[in-house]
C-alpha cells in the first residue's frame, strides 16, 4: 500500500502499467495487486483533473445543508461525483467525513481543508482553481 500511495500522490492515479511491475517486485500475482488497487477508494485508476475537490457527504455535514452544497457544486461544475470537468480542470469526489463535523459542512481542495462551507465560499475557491 505505501507504494500505491506514493504513485497515487505523485501522478494523481495509479496507471495499469504499474501493476505488473509492483507484482514482480513484491512477488505477488497481478490479480492480488489489482485487487488491492480496486478495493480502496483513494487509489484512482485514471488521471484526475488538475485540481481535486473532495466534498463530505456524511451525516454531520448533511445536517448543515451539505446536500445543498453538493448539488450546487455538481450544477456549477456540470459533473457528477467522481467525474472531471470537460476542461480537465477539476475532479469532484465524495468523501465520508473529514473529522471536521463540528464545523460542517466541509471539503478538501487539493489536500487543503475547508470548513463552514457555503455555496458562495465554494464559488470563490473554485474561481481560483486554474
Amino acid at each position: 500500500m505505501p507504494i500505491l500511495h506514493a504513485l497515487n500522490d505523485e501522478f494523481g492515479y495509479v496507471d495499469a502499467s504499474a501493476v505488473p511491475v509492483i507484482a514482480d517486485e513484491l512477488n505477488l500475482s497481478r490479480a492480488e495487486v489489482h485487487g488491492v488497487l480496486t478495493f480502496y477508494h483513494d487509489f484512482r485508476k485514471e488521471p484526475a483533473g488538475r485540481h481535486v475537490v473532495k466534498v463530505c457527504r456524511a451525516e454531520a455535514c448533511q445536517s448543515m445543508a451539505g446536500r445543498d452544497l453538493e448539488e450546487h457544486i455538481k450544477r456549477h461544475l456540470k459533473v457528477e461525483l467522481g467525474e472531471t470537468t470537460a476542461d480537465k480542470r477539476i475532479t469532484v469526489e465524495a468523501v465520508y467525513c473529514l473529522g471536521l463535523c463540528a464545523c460542517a459542512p466541509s471539503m478538501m481542495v487539493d489536500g487543503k481543508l475547508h470548513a463552514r462551507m457555503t455555496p458562495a465560499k465554494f464559488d470563490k475557491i473554485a474561481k481560483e482553481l486554474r
Partner: protein
Amino acid sequence: MTATLYIPCDSAAIACGAEEVLLAIQAEALARKIELKIIRNGSRGMLWLEPMIEVATPEGRIAYGPVAPEDVATLFAADFLNGGKNHPLCIGRPEDVPYLKNQERLTFARCGITDPTDIEDYIAHDGYRGLKAAAHMSGEAIVTAVTESGLRGRGGAGFPTGIKWKTVLGLDAQQKYIVCNADEGDSGTFADRMIMEGDPFLLIEGMTIAGLAVGATKGFVYIRSEYPIAYAQMEKAIVAANRAGYLGPNVAGSGKAFDLELRLGAGAYICGEETSLLESLEGKRGMVRAKPPLPAIKGLFGQPTVINNVLSFVAVPTILDKGATFYKDFGMGRSRGTMPLQLAGNVKHGGLIEKAFGITLRQVIEDFGGGTASGKPIRAVQVGGPLGAYFPQSLLDTPLDYEAMAAAKGMLGHGGIVVFDDSVDMAMQARFAMEFCAVESCGKCTPCRIGSTRGVEVIDRIREGQNRQKNMELLADLCDTMLDGSLCALGGLTPFPVQSAVRHFPEDFNRPAGHRAAAE
C-alpha cells in the same frame, strides 16, 4: 519583549482559517516591529470558537475567537498581545469558560495547552508518568490495573480492554504486536484526530504501556488518509520519543524494547473493522475475517495482537499514573471512567466534551451545545456514527452509558453525537444509511452487499409512494436479513439507523410523493 501566542495546528482550526490568521498576525507584527513567539498548540475543543488564538499573560492565557484575518488589526489595536479585554472576540481565560470548566478532562487534560510535538513540554505537564510507573511493574500488574479500572474499548464495541490484554499476555509467541485503530471513520467523530494532532505523545505512551504489559516489542498506528495533519504530528512525535529514549531498545529504562510505525489507510470505512484493518496492514484488500480466531490470538501476520482504538490507549497513562481506583470512580454502572464525546452537526457549540459516563444526551446538546445552530427545534440526534440509531426528542434523557444506550436500541459507539433540526427528512437519512453500507461494504456477505443496494431502491419506492405498505414490510424484512446474515457490524448494524428512523419518525415515510423537505 517577545509576546507568546498560541495558534492551533488542529485540522478544524486550520479548516476554519488558522493559517490565514497566522499570516495576518505575522504581517501586522512585522509592520509594528513586534517580535512574536508562536506555538502551534492543539485545539481545546471549543470548535465553534476556532480559530481560537491565545496569548500568554501574567494572569494566565487569554483567548480570542473565532478570529478571522480581518479581525487582526483591531486585535492589535485592543492590545491583545497583553491580554487586552476590550475586544468583542475576547473570551478571557479558556479554563473559565463553562464549556471547559464543566468537563472532567483526564484524557484531554493537556490538549490545547502544550506544544504537541515538544517532548519536554509533555513531560513538564505530567506526561510519561504512567509509563514511568509501568516500567517497574510486571506485565500482570499492568494488565490487572487496566482490568480494575473498568476501561472498555472506545472504538465501538465496548469490550473490556484488560481482558483483551490478558489474553495476549497469556500467549507464548515469537512476536506480539500492538495495533492502534486510528481509522476513525464514523461521521460526527474527531476525538482520535484531535489527540493525535494535539497530544500525540499520549498515544505513544499508551501504546508503549500496552507493549510492556503484554510483551510486545512492535506497534503500528493505522491512520486514515483523510487525516494528513494527524499523521505528520505523530511522525514528529515518534522521532522525538525515540531520541529521548521513550521508544527504542530500552524504553524509559525498563530494559524492554518497543518500536512504533505509522501506516496510512486508503479511504475505506470498513478498514476500521479490526480484522479488515489487519488485512489492510498486511497490504491486502480489507476483507473482513471470520472470528474466531480473535485478533488477540491470531492477529497481525498470524501473531497475538492487541488492537485498540486511540481513545482506549490514551486512557491508559492516567490509569497507571493515578491508579485504577481513581479512574473507576468516574462513571456509572458498568461504564467506568470518562468518555470524550464529540458534539457535531447542527449545533451552536460543537466540540469535544469529556465527561464521566452518565450525562444525558439532552444535557450534552442543550447545556453544552446550546441547541441547534439554525435556531430551529431539534428533531433527531444520531449517536455512534453511521451505524448508530437516531434518537427523537422523547429519548433525549437517555444517559450516555453503554447499557442505557443499548436499552434504548442505540449505541454509544465512538461517542459521536450529530444533531439535526426539524428540516431533516428521516426517510432520506434511512436511505443514506443503506447507501453508505452499499458504498463501503467489503463484499463478503450477500445481505450487506446486495441487501443495502436493495434497501436504497425500496426506500426510493416508499418515498415515491409506490405500494407503500408492501415496501415497508419489505424494508423490515431486509433489515432482519442484514441483522442476521452479516459477518461484521457494517451489514449487521446498518439496520439500526434505518429501523430507528422508521420507528420514531414514521410520518416521514408517509409523505405525499414528490414531497421535498425544507433541508433539500
